[in-house]
C-alpha cells in the first residue's frame, strides 16, 4: 500500500467585533428577530451605496499584525457576483487580488518540533444572510440581519499535514485573534467558521493532488473527524486507482462522513471586478505602526517570557497563554506578588477547574488581579493554610469580598500568637490524659491524635508547625 502525503489548507472566517456592519451603520449584535437589524443598504435596495467602516480595516490590520503578515499599502475592494437568496445584492463585497494582508505565518505546537504554517492572505468581506427552511409551506425563508456583518477571511497555505496540525493551527489563530481583540471566535455561536481543503500525493510527486473542499464544519471535533474521514476516503480511492474529483463536500456530523454537495447550478464564474462604489484604501507605515502598538503582548511572546524569564514549565505556560484573560490575570497578579510559580500553580491547579466547570467566566472575573495576588501571598506566607486558601477562593467567586475580609470573617487567619496555642495545647494535654500517658509510654502514633485535637480546637487558626512545636515541648516537659 502506498503511503500518501497529506496536504491540508484551511480557510477561516471570523466575525469582527465592531459596533456596526461593514458597509452601513446597522448595529452588529447577536440574536434579534429576523430582519429587524437591517436598512436599505444591507438589504440591497435600489439606489443604496456601501460605505466602508474604518474599524473593520483597523481590526483586519490588527489580525495581520498578530499573524505576522505583510500589508498591501494600496488595497482594493471587489465584487464577487453570484445569485443566492441569502445575498440581497446578488454580489458579495469582498477582496480579490489586493487583499489587506499577505504573507503571514503562525507558529503551531504539535508536541514535537516547532512548525510554522504560512498565511497566504487576510481579507475583509461582508457576511451573507441566513436561510431557514419551512417544510410546512415548502419554502425557504431569508433573514438579512447577518447581511453586512464584517468578516475577515484568513487563507492558509497548504502547509498542514495532519488533523492534529489543523487543530493546532485553528486553536492558535483563534487565540491570536482573541488576543488582538478583533473576534470572539466561537464556532458554536457562528463567529468563527472554517472550511478545509484536503489532498493526497505520493511523497516523490512534485504536483499536489486533487483538492477536495469540506464545508459545514461546526466544531473543532468535526474538523478533525472530517479530515480523518477524508484522508481515509481518498486513500482508498487512490489505492484502487479511482480518480478523485475536485469538488466541495459537506461533513455529516451524525454519520461522520463527507458527502458530495449537489453541484450548485451556477458555473463558478464570479466575475470579480473592482467595486466602483468603494474607493481603495491607502494604508501608511504610520497606520500599521500605530495599530501594532495597540496590541497587547501576544501568545508566543508571553509563552517565551513565562518559560525563559519566569521559569515556568512548558505545559504550565501553555495553559496560561491559552486564554488571554487568564494570562492577563496572571500578569496582573505577579506584578504585585512576583512569586511566578505559586501564582501559576494556583491558576492551573484551582482557578481553571472552576472555569472548566462553568462556575467562573474568564471574561467576567469577579475579583481583581491584585486581590488574587493577595490570596496567594497569604497562602505562601502562611497567613492562612493552603486548604483554607482554596476555601477563600471559592467564596471570592461570589465577587463581594476581598480575600482578607473573607479570611477574617471565616476565622481562617492563622495567629502568630503563641499564647492561644499554648492555652489550647495545655487544655488538650490535661483533657486527654490517657492518650498522653500512652504516648509517654512509647505509643508514638498518639501524637497525631493529640495534634488533631489541638487543630480542631484551633479551627485552622494556627500554623500546624507552631502547634507541633508547642505540643512537643509540653509533652517533653512531662517526661
Amino acid at each position, binding site marked *: 500500500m502506498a503511503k500518501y502525503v497529506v496536504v491540508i489548507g484551511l480557510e477561516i472566517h471570523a466575525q469582527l467585533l465592531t459596533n456596526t456592519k461593514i458597509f452601513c451603520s446597522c448595529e452588529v449584535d447577536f440574536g434579534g428577530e429576523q430582519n429587524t437589524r437591517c436598512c*436599505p443598504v444591507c*438589504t*440591497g*435596495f*435600489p*439606489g*443604496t*451605496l*456601501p*460605505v*466602508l467602516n474604518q474599524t473593520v480595516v483597523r481590526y483586519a490590520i490588527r489580525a495581520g499584525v498578530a499573524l505576522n503578515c505583510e500589508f498591501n499599502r494600496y488595497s482594493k475592494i471587489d*465584487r464577487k*457576483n453570484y*445569485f443566492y*437568496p441569502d445575498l*440581497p*445584492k*446578488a*454580489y458579495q463585497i469582498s477582496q480579490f487580488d489586493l487583499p489587506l494582508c499577505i504573507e503571514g505565518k503562525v507558529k503551531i505546537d504539535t508536541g514535537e518540533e516547532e512548525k510554522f504554517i504560512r498565511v497566504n492572505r487576510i481579507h475583509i468581506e461582508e457576511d451573507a444572510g441566513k436561510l431557514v427552511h419551512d417544510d410546512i409551506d415548502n419554502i*425557504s425563508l*431569508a433573514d438579512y440581519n447577518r447581511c453586512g456583518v464584517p468578516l475577515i477571511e484568513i487563507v492558509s497555505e497548504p502547509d498542514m499535514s495532519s488533523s492534529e496540525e489543523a487543530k493546532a493551527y485553528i486553536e492558535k489563530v483563534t487565540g491570536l485573534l482573541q488576543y488582538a481583540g478583533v473576534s470572539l471566535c466561537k464556532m458554536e455561536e457562528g463567529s468563527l467558521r472554517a472550511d478545509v481543503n484536503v489532498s493526497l500525493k505520493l511523497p516523490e510527486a512534485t504536483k499536489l493532488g486533487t483538492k477536495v473542499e469540506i464545508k459545514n464544519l461546526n466544531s473543532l471535533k468535526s474538523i478533525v473527524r472530517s479530515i480523518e474521514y477524508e484522508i481515509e476516503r481518498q486513500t482508498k480511492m487512490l489505492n484502487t486507482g479511482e480518480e478523485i474529483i475536485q469538488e466541495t463536500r459537506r461533513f455529516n456530523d451524525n454519520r461522520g462522513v463527507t458527502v458530495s454537495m449537489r453541484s450548485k*447550478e451556477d458555473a463558478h*464564474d464570479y*466575475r470579480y*471586478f473592482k467595486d*466602483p*462604489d*468603494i*474607493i481603495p484604501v491607502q494604508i501608511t507605515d504610520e497606520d500599521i505602526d500605530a495599530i501594532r502598538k495597540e496590541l497587547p503582548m501576544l501568545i508566543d511572546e508571553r509563552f517565551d517570557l513565562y518559560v525563559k524569564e519566569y521559569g515556568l514549565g512548558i505545559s504550565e505556560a501553555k495553559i496560561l497563554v491559552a486564554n488571554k484573560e487568564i494570562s492577563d490575570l496572571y500578569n496582573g497578579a505577579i506584578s504585585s506578588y512576583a512569586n511566578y510559580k505559586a501564582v501559576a500553580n494556583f491558576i492551573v491547579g484551582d482557578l481553571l477547574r472552576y472555569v472548566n466547570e462553568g462556575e467562573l467566566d474568564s471574561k467576567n472575573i469577579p475579583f481583581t488581579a491584585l486581590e488574587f495576588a493577595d490570596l496567594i501571598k497569604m497562602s505562601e506566607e502562611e497567613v492562612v493554610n493552603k486548604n483554607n486558601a482554596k476555601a477563600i477562593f471559592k467564596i471570592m467567586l461570589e465577587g463581594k469580598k476581598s480575600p482578607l475580609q473573607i479570611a477574617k470573617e471565616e476565622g481562617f487567619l492563622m495567629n502568630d500568637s503563641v499564647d492561644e496555642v499554648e492555652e489550647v495545647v495545655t487544655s488538650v494535654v490535661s483533657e486527654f490524659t490517657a492518650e498522653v500517658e500512652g504516648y509517654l509510654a512509647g505509643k508514638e502514633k498518639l501524637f497525631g491524635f493529640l495534634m488533631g485535637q489541638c487543630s480542631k480546637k484551633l479551627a485552622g487558626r494556627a500554623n500546624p508547625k507552631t502547634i507541633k512545636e508547642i505540643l512537643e515541648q509540653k509533652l517533653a516537659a512531662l517526661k
Partner: protein
Amino acid sequence: MELCDKSIIELRQMLDDKQISSVELTKYYLDRINQIDPKIESYITVCEESALASAAKADSRIAKGEAATLTGIPISIKDNMCTEGIRTTCGSKILGDFVPPYNATAVNKLLAEDVVILGKVSMDEFAMGGSTQTSYYKKTKNPYDLTRVPGGSSGGSAASVAAKLAVAALGSDTGGSVRQPASFCGITGMKPTYGTVSRYGLVAFASSFDQIGPLAHSAKDCASLLDTISGHDPFDGTSANKKMNFTSKLGQNIKGLKLALPKEFFEEGIDSEVRIAVLKAVEEYKKMGAEIVEVSMPSLKYAIAAYYLIASAEASSNLARYDGIKFGYCSPSAKTYQERIQRSRSEGFGDEVKRRILLGTYALSSGYYDAYYKKALYVQQKIKAEYKNIFDTCDAIITPTAPTTAYKIGEIEGDSVKMYLADICTVTVNIAGLPAVSTTCGYNAIGMPIGMSVVGKAFDDATVLQIADAFEVNFKSINPRL
C-alpha cells in the same frame, strides 16, 4: 411673457414679493400638465396632493421671510431617483410597484428648501438609452416635434422643462443622458463633476459614471439647482469632499479664456447643420474675447467601446439585485427559486436592458476579462490623460452635444449599434468624470434645436457654467409650438 417663461430668479422675486403664491404657481403647472402632457407623455407619476401640500408649506416659509433660493419652485424628478412614499419605476416593468422607504440625498436637499415636487418623469429603462422610447410606461415625445424623440435617457426631464410642465428638472447622466436630451429639446442641461452630487438614492446604472444633473431653461437656473443638491454625503463613499459654488462665476467676463476644439469632434459623422451651428457659436465666443485653440483627442475612436464595456459591466452587476424577491415584479408562473429569479428578470426587463446585462456579463467573464473590461479601463486612463493634456493649456472644451438633432421616433432605436454610436460626443466626459453643460446654440432648417457642449476641468464647474451663460445671454431661444 408668460409665467412659465420666467426664470428661477424671477420666480423667486415674485414669490417673495407675494405677486404669486407657491400654491398658485403649483396649480398653474399642474393645470398645464393636465392639458399638455397627454401629448408629450413626460410624467409617469403626477404628485398632485403632495405637491400642493409642499407648496402650502413653502408659502408659510416664504411668509416668514425664510425662503431659500428654490423654496416653492415646482420641479420634476427623473423616475430613477428614490422618493420616499412615491412610486419609483426607473421606467421599468420590474420596478412597477416599487415604493422606496427613503429619499435620495439630492431629493432630501431639495425638500430641505421646500421645493415643490410635481412628479416623476419618464426615462429610458434603467437609464439605458438615448430616446426614452424604451420606457415601459411613457414614451415621451419631443415638444418641438411630437413625431421625434426627446432624447434620453432623461427624456421626460427634458421634455417636461421644454414644454414648460415644470420650471426645472433633475435628470441623471451616465453617457450623456442629461446633455443629449437637453440638446434635442432646446434647453440647458448639466452633468457636474463626478462626486459633486451624491448618488445615494439614484438607482445605479454605471456607478463610475452616473451623476445627477439639472435640466432647466438656462445655465443660471442649472447653477442654482446645483448649489442646492450638491455637497459631500456620508452615505456615498465616492462623494467628493469639496465645497462647490456653481453660481460664483456667472456673469464674469470670459475674455482671455482659452477654448479648445478637439478636431475629432467635428469630422464626418457629425451632421453639417450641427457642425455649422456650433462653429458659429464659437465665433461668438471669439467676439467676446475668448481664444480658440485646435486640439486633438486621438482616443476618441475607442471611446464608445470603452464606455459601453465599463458601463455594461457595472450595470450587469448593479441590476443583479432585481430578482422579484425583495421588491419589484415577481413572475407569477414560477415554481422553483431558479424559475422565480430567471422569469422575473426575463419578464421584467426590456430588450435593451437584457442586451447590456449580457454584454456586461460577457466583458467580465473569465476568458474575456482582459480583452474587454481590462482593456477598456486602460483606454479610460488614456482618455483621462488626453483631457489633462488639453486642460494644461486650455480652460474649457467646446464640442457638439450630439452628432444630430432629434430623429424621428422609430428611426434608429431598434438598432443598438447605431444608438451607441450616437453617444460619441458625450461619453468621454463621463469616462473622465468631468463637468459639462449643453446649451442650445441654434436650430436646424426645420426648427429642431442644436446643442453645444462646454466641458471643463474637474471641479471647475463654475467656469463651465460661466462660459455657457455668456453665450446664452445673447442667444434668442425659440419656444416649441404646443
